[in-house]
């Protein structure tokens, strides 16, 4: 993976996480649950991507 792609992904994914976090206070209970689940998935995907980049020779 290129560093440029990584930067793009970090920007995109963090933007979604920040926007989703802003929705939490007004979310209904099911929506709250769904948003949190998606956020966890997003954060994990980002962590995995960073780890993969770190492992890159």
């Amino acid at each position, binding site marked *: 993976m290129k560093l440029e792609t990584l930067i793009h992904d970090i920007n*995109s994914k963090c933007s979604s996480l*920040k*926007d989703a976090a802003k*929705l939490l206070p007004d979310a209904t209970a099911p929506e709250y649950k*769904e*948003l949190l689940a998606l956020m966890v998935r997003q954060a994990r995907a980002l962590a995995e991507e960073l780890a993969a980049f770190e492992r890159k020779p």
Partner: protein
Amino acid sequence: MEKLSILVVEDDPLARKVMAVQLKDHAVDFASDAASGRKLLESGHHALCFLDLQLGDKDEASGMELIPLACAKGVYSVVMSGHDAEAMVERAYELGCDDFYSKGNEASNVGSVIARYLNKKEGAKSDVFAERFVTEDAETRAAVKEALKYAPSELPILILGPSGSGKTNLARVLHDHSGRPGAFVAINCAAYTEDLLEAELFGYKKGAFTGANDNHKGKLLAADRGTLFLDEIGSMSLKMQTKLLKAIEERSFHPLGSERAETSRFRVISATLEDIQSLIKAGKMRFDFFQRIHGLTVELKALARRKGDILPLIAALARGGKRLAFTPEAKQRLLAHDWPGNVREVKRFVSLLAAGEDGRVGPEAVDRLLRTVRAEHGATGGFVGEEQYRYALENGLTAAVDRFSDEIIRRNLDDHGGKKTATLADLKISTRLLYAALARLRGERSEP
């Protein structure tokens, strides 16, 4: 707001969810890759499409492939990107996309995009100059067009122009083209004393002052997500400017007598007939306040300087009522008149005409109605107001002329910080006249 048919092509499930919430008032289709996005776009029933720049892992800008198809289908295409590298932005616009934004703060991004789309759509279907702001004057058209470009933005707009030249009307047109869901709330700052203006703008709680028998919602709160139109801004005191400046900057304020701060996301449009630079020089307008209200300045000319607008304006104002036909002599009279009350005077003229005249209007009728309108406006000749006229009747013409020149000299001296040489040059007056005025202003007798 109008319910729109929207397509979102986005591979990130969390971003799709965020968009679903932001666009909940519209009919939205989602696609998670370019192929399904293409299929949905082919159906051609979407008004707008939001395209993620990078779909999947393959190409850096795979979302751009869909822009030509969106264009061909007449869909307003918006590219959303995690980074806004100049080359990408340029390429997207070259391909024909209508809008491009960097991801982050989607609540604001999506709202602005929809406002720009609606503005474009409105602009395409209606001619502002035929219906909302009638003018044939090239300079005025250019100024209004420029202002309309910024209608959907948060940029504050300052409208300058003489009384009756259409400042309030233009402010309303700009609000209607802004796509802002809130109300258009207007206040004439010159119509209130400082205390009353504060109460009107900020609102108050019951018992905040004598006579505050109920809670009162102020104009700032009423304009939440809408437009606050501050007319005659030049008459606002420095103290009020300071308070309003803080509310504009922080989007938050305390109603009188309230411990709790209210928030309001209003956009400011202001207007004045005064010379703003002179107000600043004379210390009557704070420079930081001026900076806050003049993102874009639009100057409207007096009707006397755009005479080509007189007949189209009369025709537009008479629309829907009695069909009027002016004789060539009547037209000449209309064009020769200076219309000191500007559009407001034309409106009154047309309403009198429609109420009491035959369809065919001759020069006598025009002369008679213009006299009536001028008397109603309290202007005997456009330059002399009713107050000055009464003063002259009570105190004699010489006293009235002295008072008039004294006021002008005093104001000009204020503008120049008391520098007499500057005032002598500006007003082209003799030293003797200047000193006579100063003596009168000090309450002394002038020397013979």
